[in-house]
């Protein structure tokens, strides 16, 4: 990469638990964050934080293009889902618009053997795991509750009750240690996703306690998208969230969550530390939820248009495109191709979503217990008898 070391990106980052530094300006929040790609597409070669960690990326052109393609694709798929919801084909949709870099960057940072515990919004992470993007649509269409095998995909089912999954992730990570699968570069690690709002839940803080005590190989990845539904960050904390970690004895770091490179670099480093036996860390990905909380939400009730506008200037995809163009890593043909292939994927997704069969009502009695239960069996039989009684009638 031709870029030299550049001060602008290296916004001062406090050491974990250290005092905040004033921000020299630019788009970083007070306290700074790690940024490797500025909003106008300037690469920062590397950033060294106050605790002596140096972050950089070393991607091939091919890898850069892949990152870009994934960013565009997850945004396009998300837009398709939003449309499907508006058309009544989904019960609800939780859009990731604006958070593509945080998700694609951290998702790529995972190694094959790593396990992810998502919330309900990590469609982008899911995609980078190589999982068929249709997977969560059962849940949002109301066809199932999110039925896949976490161990097959190394990606847990979506969790809706805020914060719960952070404890599951911690327990899983404890299991990695118990299995002797840490302490080497091909050890395993866990990433737990959650939002800014979730940091207020007891469970999330208990997960911090446990991870510290058991030195669990886990990365807590907080997408601070500035809102918990209508509530701005100030309702959850009066200091930056990444600083929470210091109180539990492990590093916390804030990254520009709209910068896919910083996200990748810092997450990869944190995961590698975890797999090497150095324990937990917290990453606060500073980003913004560009859309509504979910399709049921009306954000005009609680935030002003100019705020959303100001974040448009920090778009996570535009900056990568600018960078690729400037560096001649990609040209308009490439960009058009990616748009095209994303569109194709989206239309294919649409078709397959529309083709999703409604479940047979009687299947609601399945999978209540691994070993079954006479009560459920009895009610299923009763249900079938009852419905059979309507056969031939207009029911």
């Amino acid at each position, binding site marked *: 990469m031709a870029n030299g070391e550049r001060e602008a990106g290296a916004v001062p980052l406090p050491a974990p638990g250290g005092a905040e530094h004033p921000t020299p300006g630019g788009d970083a929040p007070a306290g700074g964050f790690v940024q490797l790609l500025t909003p106008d597409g300037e690469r920062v070669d590397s950033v060294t934080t106050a605790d002596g960690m140096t972050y950089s990326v070393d991607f091939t052109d091919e890898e850069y293009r892949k990152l870009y393609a994934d960013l565009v694709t997850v945004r396009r798929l998300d837009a398709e889902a939003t449309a499907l919801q508006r058309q009544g084909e989904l*019960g*609800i949709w939780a859009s990731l618009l604006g958070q593509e870099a945080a998700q694609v960057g951290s998702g790529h940072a995972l190694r094959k053997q790593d396990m992810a515990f998502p919330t*309900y919004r990590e469609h982008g992470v899911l995609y980078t795991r190589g999982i068929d993007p249709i997977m969560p649509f*059962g*849940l*949002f*269409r*109301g*066809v*199932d*509750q*999110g039925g896949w095998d976490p161990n097959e995909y190394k990606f847990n089912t979506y969790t*809706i*009750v*805020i914060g719960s999954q952070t404890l599951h992730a911690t327990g899983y990570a404890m299991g990695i240690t118990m299995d002797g699968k840490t302490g080497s570069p091909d050890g395993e690690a866990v990433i737990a996703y959650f939002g800014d*709002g*979730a940091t*207020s*839940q*007891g*469970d999330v803080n208990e997960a911090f306690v446990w991870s510290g005590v058991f030195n669990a190989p886990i990365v807590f990845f907080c997408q601070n998208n500035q809102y*918990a*539904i*209508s*509530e701005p960050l100030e*309702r*959850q904390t009066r200091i930056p969230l990444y600083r929470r970690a210091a109180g539990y004895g492990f590093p916390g770091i804030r990254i520009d969550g709209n910068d896919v490179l910083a996200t990748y670099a810092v997450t990869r480093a944190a995961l590698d530390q975890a797999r090497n036996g150095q324990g937990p860390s917290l990453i606060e990905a500073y980003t913004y939820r560009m859309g509504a909380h979910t399709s*049921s*939400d009306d954000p005009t*009730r*609680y935030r002003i248009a100019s705020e959303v506008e100001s974040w448009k200037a920090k778009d996570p995809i535009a900056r990568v495109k600018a960078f690729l163009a400037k560096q001649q890593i990609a040209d308009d043909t490439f960009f058009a191709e990616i748009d095209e292939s994303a569109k194709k994927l989206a239309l294919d997704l649409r078709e397959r979503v529309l083709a999703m069969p*409604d*479940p047979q*009502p009687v*299947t*609601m*009695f399945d999978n*209540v217990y691994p070993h079954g*239960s006479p*009560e*459920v069996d009895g*009610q299923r039989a009763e*249900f079938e008898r*009852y419905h059979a009684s*309507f056969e031939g009638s207009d*029911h």
Partner: protein
Amino acid sequence: MVETITLGKSLNHGLRRALEDDAKVVIMGEDVGKLGGVFRITDGLQKDFGEDRVIDTPLAESGIVGTAIGLAIRGYRPVCEIQFDGFVFPAYNQIVAQVAKMFYRSLGNVRLPIVIRIPFGGGIGAVEHHSESPEALFAHIPGLKVVSCANSADAFMMIRQAVVSDDPVIFFEPKRRYWEKGEVDLDADLGQAFPLHKARITRAGTDATVLAYGPMVRTALDAASAAAEDGRNLEVIDLRTLSPLDMETVYASVKRTGRAVVVHEAPGNLGLGAELAARITEECFYSLEAPVLRVTGYDIPYPAARVEEDYLPDLDRVLDAVDRSFGW
């Protein structure tokens, strides 16, 4: 002034009145402020009463109820909103071990006039945790009172009654009925209100008693209308109070009709229907022509939205139970 308004709007009016009537009343919960709650039940209240009276809280249900307890000890009357039924469980410890027991523990010295509002039940096509009916988990706990409103008029009065009550009240709101309209006397006086812990005969009948509450009252009434066409005269009781139960009203009805069907969305096993059946049988043993029958949700987790209509009790299942009762 009698207006025809939705159940949700009635709650909004009721809460507004509660805030006006007593400066110690505060509303707290997730998104209750600017947004007015995800169902807009607190719409406009923060704007009119300020951020100290209508408090957007951190995202932590145990915190909501736990701090409400502290506020109550200091003399406040907190009304907590739990965003959806399935999210009350992080607060369950504070509710069961503290809210329910502090009056008892303190030998009557500490009153906790806390209302915990919970939109409950299914039928809105939602994802997991948004359609549950956990009322039995509260009604089983001594020290809590549990109520549910079923129509606009009751919504307006019952929420106000709950707020002025010194008992801790778990207030279940039938979320899928939020948009159903009814007449409400917005000048109605609390003093003359129908008592909070009384059931109401919503439709008088002679042949069988249908017991319901919250969202199922409408279902029961629809069933009664359909039954009437077949010449069967069902009595429908809206329980309104789930703990304590108003058994006098229930017994009197069942002794007259000789038959009872209980309807609720919650799983049948250890649901309210179990308790009602047990008590009715004990009290009306020689009056019953058939056992008390239950029409309830199945003993499975709340299913995916696309099959919820098959899970939820409906008019047909109520009528089927009435038929079975008559065929006993």
